[in-house]
């Protein structure tokens, strides 16, 4: 009987080897390049339209908000995408130091201004290339909904406008997609661009400045002054915390429940999709400055494409080359993003894409803003944070600001207490993130 068993075992082993050989053979033909993105809906459809022009097959995967969880899980299963495009550039430092990423060739990096590349530089090497930028210092409004009031230029005028509109029986002054934590962090960061000095802002990114101090505290207090206005948001604050960003745009443009909505240039394309026929498009004004002498805040965001190494040795080189070719093409002189530019809601920090490519109008002007803001570039703070401090859903800054929002919009809010609590939670989360990333 032992003889029989050993013969069976041998047969089984042979079958296993045959299967493995077969599998090896099957994977050789041209494999599609896999790209993981955070976009969904219309943006995902537009990006798919972009990569359809690529000479080879490209498979685009929507990974949801939590790109870090997705990439880490995929990395553990040695099944990472070839290219990942995401706004949370704080992740890049961790990934680069774990040798997950392939460096960006110099000719690709040369397509961007120095401050943009600096954001993607880890230990002197550039990892990643920008495929999309966002101008995040805009308010969008229906011109007929401001009740003939002038457009606010300073934060005080803005607060006064919100109060005045909230006191009338007109639609609520503001819509806000508070279910998406990044919308709330963008509000805070616009104020921080002015309230915090460059050193302080960068110190917050690096974790050398305490979150419980000056600028953050002041910014939160200012936010509470607007968010806490009774009737500022349609249907009450509980409902607002379940409203997502794109829905908040619909509330302004289609449902006329609110007059204004804050968010980046990408609001435009959503607004156009849902604008009832015959209604004029939404107008914009810049995020208000803190005083007549202060500059207007300019907060920029963006999505960077990184090439992930997979496999080892020569296989890794071949895979990385495939990913790099795609990124080279995405940022290259053929300007593949033309369909998205034409559709709207797309800006690029790419020097090869001239502001005139957007056909004049608002987008061209915003693109000029982005490309000229080289010296004082303030990139989205939460996206640069490392560890769990920068979000996503249910974590770090996203969750802390959502809880802060719930507190200050409640009945008879204790603003000072809410600011204290938010500050100390931010400090603790920052310390926790530091432990995570140093271990």
């Amino acid at each position, binding site marked *: 009987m032992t003889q*029989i068993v050993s013969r069976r075992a041998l047969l089984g082993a042979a079958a296993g080897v045959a299967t493995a050989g077969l*599998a090896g053979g099957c994977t050789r033909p041209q494999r599609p390049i896999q790209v993981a993105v955070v976009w969904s809906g219309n943006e995902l459809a537009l990006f798919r339209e972009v990569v359809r022009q690529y000479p080879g097959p490209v498979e685009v995967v929507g990974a949801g908000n939590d790109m870090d969880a997705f990439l880490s899980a995929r990395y553990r299963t040695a099944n990472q995408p070839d290219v990942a495009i995401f706004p949370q550039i704080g992740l890049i430092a961790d990934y680069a130091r774990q040798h997950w990423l392939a460096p960006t060739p110099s000719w690709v990096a040369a397509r961007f201004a120095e401050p943009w590349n600096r954001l993607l530089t880890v230990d002197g090497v550039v990892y990643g290339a920008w495929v999309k930028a966002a101008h995040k210092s805009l308010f969008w409004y229906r011109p007929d909904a401001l009740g003939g009031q002038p457009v606010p230029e300073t934060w005080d005028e803005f607060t006064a406008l919100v109060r005045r509109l909230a006191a009338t029986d007109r639609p609520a002054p503001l819509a806000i997609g508070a*279910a998406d934590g990044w919308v709330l962090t963008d509000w805070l960061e616009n104020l921080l661009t002015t309230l915090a000095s460059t050193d302080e802002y960068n110190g917050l990114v690096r974790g050398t400045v305490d979150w419980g101090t000056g600028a953050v505290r002041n910014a939160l207090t200012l936010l509470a002054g607007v968010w806490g206005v009774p009737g500022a948001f349609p249907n009450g604050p509980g409902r607002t915390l*379940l409203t997502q960003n*794109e829905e908040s*745009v*619909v509330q302004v443009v289609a449902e006329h429940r609110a007059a204004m909505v804050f968010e980046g240039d990408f609001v435009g394309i959503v607004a156009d999709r849902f604008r009832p026929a015959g209604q004029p498009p939404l107008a914009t004004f810049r995020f208000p400055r803190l005083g007549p002498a202060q500059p207007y805040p300019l907060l920029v965001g963006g999505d960077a494409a990184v090439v992930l190494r997979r496999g080892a040795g020569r296989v890794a080189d071949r895979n990385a080359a495939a990913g790099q070719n795609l990124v080279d093409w995405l940022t290259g002189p053929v300007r593949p993003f033309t369909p998205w530019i034409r559709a709207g809601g797309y800006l690029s920090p790419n020097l090869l894409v001239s502001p005139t490519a957007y056909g004049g109008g608002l987008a061209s002007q915003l693109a000029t803003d982005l490309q000229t803001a080289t010296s004082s570039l303030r990139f989205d703070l939460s996206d640069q944070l490392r560890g*769990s401090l920068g979000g996503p859903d*249910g974590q770090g800054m996203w*969750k802390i600001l959502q809880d802060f929002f719930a507190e200050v919009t409640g009945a008879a809010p204790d603003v000072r207490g809410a600011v204290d609590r938010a500050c100390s939670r931010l400090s603790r989360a920052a310390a926790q993130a530091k432990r995570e990333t140093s271990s």
Partner: protein
Amino acid sequence: MSEPDTSGRLLGEVVVIDDIGPGRRSRAYPSGGFAALLLTPVVLLLGAVLLWPIARTVQASLTGPQHRYAGLAHFRTDLAAEGIRQVLGRTLLWAVAIPVVVILLGYLLAAATRRSSSRVATMVLVAPIALPLVVTGVMFRLFYDPDPARGTGTRTVVAVAGLFGVPADTVPPWLGPDLITIALMSAFVWAWLGLPVVVFRAALDAIPTELADAVRASGGTRWHVFRDALWKPLLRRTTTIVFALVALGTARAFDLILVMTPGSSVDEAANLAVRVWQTSGSATSGPAAALNVLWLAALSVGVVIAALGSRQAWPPPQSPPSEPEFDGSTVDEVAPERGRRLVRRTLPALTALVWAIPVVALVATSLHSPQDSATRGWWAAPLRLTSYTDLFKGGDLLRSLVFTGTLALLVTIVVVALALPAGYALARLRPPGTAAAGVLLLAASAMPVQVVAGPVNEVLQALGLAGTGLGLGLVHVALGVPFAVLVLRNGLADVPAEEIREARFAGRREWWVLWRIAPVAKPAIIAVAVLEFVQVWNDFVVGLLFGGSAATPLGLLLFGQTRQFVTNNGTLAAIAVLASIPPLLLIVFARGHVVRGLVSGAVR
């Protein structure tokens, strides 16, 4: 393949041994080598893709850098993390509350629909089992949309609150932090209720009515009838199994929570699976492995309960039980009073009506243009097909549908091909360790793939399959085989001894015997095939972790669209409807076979 004269000698023995009993049979059976051959592929597969990875995970949870023993340090780190106790408590709540609700409701409905002919009602209750959990998540996210103009669930609550004079603004939203767990649980109950209804109906139909008559004749009350004629002989065991099955199922509520929960409520909704997903991204793997081990430990408790439940003494049936019929069988009994008849008539119909609303809402939403579905209710506005036509523009959805369908089909074929011989070996040849194998298989079929994802990859890499369609298929096969073997073992154990004897006389080799008697286990084979296909088609987690670059599996494609609801409602609903049709049709058309296949062998 034994020598001809050996099998001839063997024949006579088996005929005798078959009537003696399992214990001696395994010792006396001479062709252990053949059983080993039949079992080898399954053992190799489970060893490589389940057992070894579990060992690795346990090891990682106990060791620090450079494989130094770290004791329980990782567990302490986990338990010190903010909010972990709530997460564990919530996971436990899911595992206890959901089975209780599902069993109570399911038993009531099974008892009520048993002798009525409400086919449609039963169908509506059973159908949700067939749907992918990701689709259920989308469906209930739409149903509980906080805006009463779109969300039917919210509209209902607001209307009811209005009756009591409560203003709409003060009604807590379903998806808000206070009620999110209730909302998620309701979606889960909606999806799983069909299981106990079917199982309890099969059980109730299998109970001989003479038993109840006898209790009644000796002056027993209705409670006595329930206790002595239903609970003790059959329901106790069935309830234990259903409880364990549902409790183990709740561990996989991951898909539902990820899709259905708005960002601001994630903290209040997360269970252990979600927590593992969120935090395993940190650089060190020790604490993540420790969380996985905690999860495993909780699951093994469930498996032990299930195993004990299924081992409970079974009273020998007085008369051979007739084939349990799924639909319609009417056995005349004492005429129930009018009130009870009314309940019997209306309860299933009412439940079915309530159960149908989310589906109707989903289908209606998909039949609106993306613009209308974002701004108006599903009952308003003109019907259009633009949400569907937009979907097929790029060809990505079509590719995903074809890929998922092909994958599911191939995996199903391989699973049946591997599990049939193994099931035969366990049912008929009974090599040593057969009883232990049953528990191990049960444990393996309850295993969430996230727990072993890392080590599984090491195996796939060694085979050169990481990131390929084949690798994805292999993981699916490994996850599907344990359950398939269990069902096929039961199905083959049901084959009458005479048929085997005949097969043995007619053919000389064991292979041939297996080939001859396989058709008798047809219901079990169909059940396995249908359930495996549906499982692969409906999968989200395996595709999320192992999906290669060839094409995106359907579940992952749908998940990728869930970042923004409302503006995306039309698209999401349309994909959800398309993803539901194949598994729904399969389950509806093959339901008789599936139920027969699953209950076959249960009386052994």
